[in-house]
């Protein structure tokens, strides 16, 4: 028995591939965003819901290696794609160099923007390891943070760049 007949005709079962694992979605309403399904159906609340209209980047994930706002992707549209979320960064709970640098630089305050920034900064530094400061600012300008004024975040990015260049 389904309790919400209101949505039954607009619902479907499908599977998603997230952080290397398969997840089944039972009777998901077709209007659900990838963000909603990650957070509310699959127990992966790392991607955050600050605007749900593509303006803040707090919901950032990688979809087949491309940085997207998961609030603007229909979950059912992500079938067959490789989804990577902040929960999939780092092996077995180990911190990545970017996560470590955020902590050391004091880049975290309330933390709501942080998961999106972690994903975005990894994406940026994988693509452009030597981005200059202005390019870094531009690259993360789609990730709104209301607490930090970005100063410590930029310091964290610069620290990762120095570290990676030296290694």
């Amino acid at each position, binding site marked *: 028995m389904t*309790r*919400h*007949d*209101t*949505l039954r005709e607009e619902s479907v079962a499908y599977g998603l591939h997230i952080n290397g694992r398969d997840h089944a979605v039972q009777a998901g*309403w077709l*209007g*659900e965003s990838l963000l*909603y399904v990650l*957070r*509310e159906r699959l127990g992966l*609340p*790392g*991607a*955050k*819901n*600050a605007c*749900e*209209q593509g*303006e*803040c980047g*707090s919901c950032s994930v990688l979809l087949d290696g491309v940085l997207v706002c998961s609030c603007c992707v229909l979950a059912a549209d992500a079938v067959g794609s490789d989804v990577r*979320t*902040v*929960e999939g960064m*780092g092996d077995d709970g180990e*911190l990545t160099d970017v*996560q470590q640098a*955020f*902590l*050391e630089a*004091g880049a*975290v*305050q*309330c*933390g*709501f923007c*942080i*998961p999106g920034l*972690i994903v975005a900064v990894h994406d940026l530094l994988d693509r452009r390891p030597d981005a200059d*400061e*202005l390019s870094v*600012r*531009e690259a993360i*300008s*789609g*990730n*709104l*943070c*209301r*607490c*930090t*004024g*970005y*100063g*410590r*975040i*930029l*310091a964290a990015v*610069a620290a990762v760049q120095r570290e990676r260049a030296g290694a």
Partner: protein
Amino acid sequence: MRSGQRRRTTTAAQASATGTTTRERVGGGIGSDAERPDGVPKVQGRFGFSSDAFAEGMLWGRTLRSPHAAARIRSIDTSGAEQLDGVEVVITAADVPGRATFGLEHPDQPVFASDVVRYQGEPVAAVAAVHPEIARRAVEAIAVDYEPLDPLIDAEAAVDADPIHPDGNVVRHIEIVHGTPDEITGSVVVEGTYEIGMQDQAFMGPESGLAIPDGDGGVDLYISTQWLHVDRDQVAACLALEPEQVRLTLSGVGGAFGAREDVSLQVHVCLLALRTGQPVKMVYSREESFFGHVHRHPARMHYRHHADHDGTLVKVEASLWFDGGAYASSSTAVISNACSFAPGPYRVAHAHVRGWAMRTNNPPCGAMRGFGSVQVCMAHEAQMDKLAAALDIDPVELRLSNALRTGDQLITGQRITGVAPVAECIRAAADAPPLDDDRDEPLRFPGGTGRTADRHHVRRGTGVAVGFKNLMYSEGFDDFSTAAVRLEVGADGAPVATVHCAAAEVGQGFVTLAQQIVRTELWAQVVHLHQADTAIGSAGSTSASRQTWMSGGAVQGACDRVRERLLQRVADRRGIDLTGARREVLALRDGEIRHVDDGWSVPLGEALEDGPVEANYEHHHVRTDPFDERGQGDAHVSFVFAAHRAVVDVDPELGLVRVQQLTTGQDVGRALNPRAVIGQIEGGIAQGVGLAVMEEIVLDEGCIANPSFTDYLIPTALDMPVVDATLIEQPEPGAPYGAKGVGEPPTISSTPAVVAAIRDATGLDLRRVPVRPDDIALRRS
């Protein structure tokens, strides 16, 4: 990175002269850049914010809000919603079992509107359904018959208008008369009228919470808020429950900045849970968030400054009109601050300040970072620049020569007994190294790459501003804090401390500080933090830059008692007398209890063998007084100061501005975690820059025209200038560790500094913030 920090610290002799005890360092203790205890889960996405809360079988709540700024409700028909499959309950005003209204200071705001709506977005009904989409459709299916009314939208006009609320349109009127303003005139007089638009706190984590009925008539609420206990009391009153039946637990807070002082969904979600007997979760969308919380008061401020030819300020007159919107919220305290700090941090012997906090049909306004000081600072600093121009005195010199010092009197008659390094703040901001930039980089031009300014048109300007405000609550309010600390031996034999305090961690780092204090006081490296909840006494609000002082003091006080009890335990065991002058013969140091004279010591772990030591402490600040009828009285606890210098580039043709650099000197008392202080300063400056050049809730006949991040713009990483901060460390007497709260000063004078810089670059007489492109390009202000 050019963003940086310099620290200017008083010598040890100066510090001890102010009575502040200096303690030895312990790893991760006071004064260190200790790491946040919640940092790892936050970078891994594992930290539980209130919008992440989940319970098996939970329902989704949603609110129906008024589309009108003012209307009479003829009827509400909920049957359409009730008929939808998956809708469990629909509630309106008729379902509120207790007090029909709530409010931070005065319960003047209906839980649900029933006869009239007084602002766009006022809640009218709520539903709980099995899916958020069903809840959305249910809300749409509720039919409300409104008779729209003409909204009252001007605060000054509201004085004589028909009352829009049974309590009238004047929420509070204050008059400050200091000296003999009627008899004094300066040789130079400047005047102006200034306006400030409505700013939004725009925290990232939307209002959200999960209510779980306890099956016994009570409810547990997991919520992001700034003050658990004041929420609890309002929920209990509206639900006709005893306070013990409403238990609140702080759920991860995604920023606050004042917007979470007032109740938003708390009563609604608890009532939905009690009515359905099921857990109910509510999460506002970004649009709903713009309607669901109070904003910063817009203001119109008429000023007249009088000075002597040598630049001595002799009189300030001001009329301040603050638009509180439809309900009182914290308007009474906001207007009190605005009046108290109306002249800025300057000595002035005579003043006549009148302030009105008004009710209108605009969105309700209340607390936001800087609380009343932000508005007046924009005006008094514009006036100081005008005065400097009229006197032909350098604006920095004019400020320095009038700057408040310890011992000076405010216009409220109160003398500053604490430190007041106003001149040091001004010098640090004004003398900071200039910007070394590369002006040829298009991304750095006003407008960025999208609407790039023509390099040849760009003009650079510089401006300086100073501001101040109070720490803690004022006018006789006792905003105490409570903490409990337990010290025991952990599984590995090392001492472990646990702190329980209801202080809301909203991102500012109180959790870090609590650990630092315990490490310093009790030498326990491992410090657990009990979740913040209403199982312990109130910690007061995370606002007014007060938690470092108030809850920091509570944790320190609890640690002191734990230490005393522990020392007593050792003394009892060894037969040592600790009374009277022998009180200090035992000391806790370097992780052991030492006999100061005999030299023996007992490791902490051994002293704790007989079981844990616990203590509670309630920390109160010094008493303050209410104002008398002339607005005089020792109403405030302590004051904090900051100065900013802004460098901007402007394209006057396109009206585009780019803020390039912000330097600041900030009075911090003592930096207990310098890195966290810098984070607060940079974040606060971002909000000040936002207010200066981009942030405004645009109102059209009381209705919000831009309730989204598409249209309400906050600074991005590209908009933020380089920040260079100097921390002025002069310990504040009476403050735990000499530290002052640091969160608010960065947002107070950064805005007027940017506006002054734009005036400097353009020669325009800008009287309103945010400064919009038209204000520059079309000379419209």
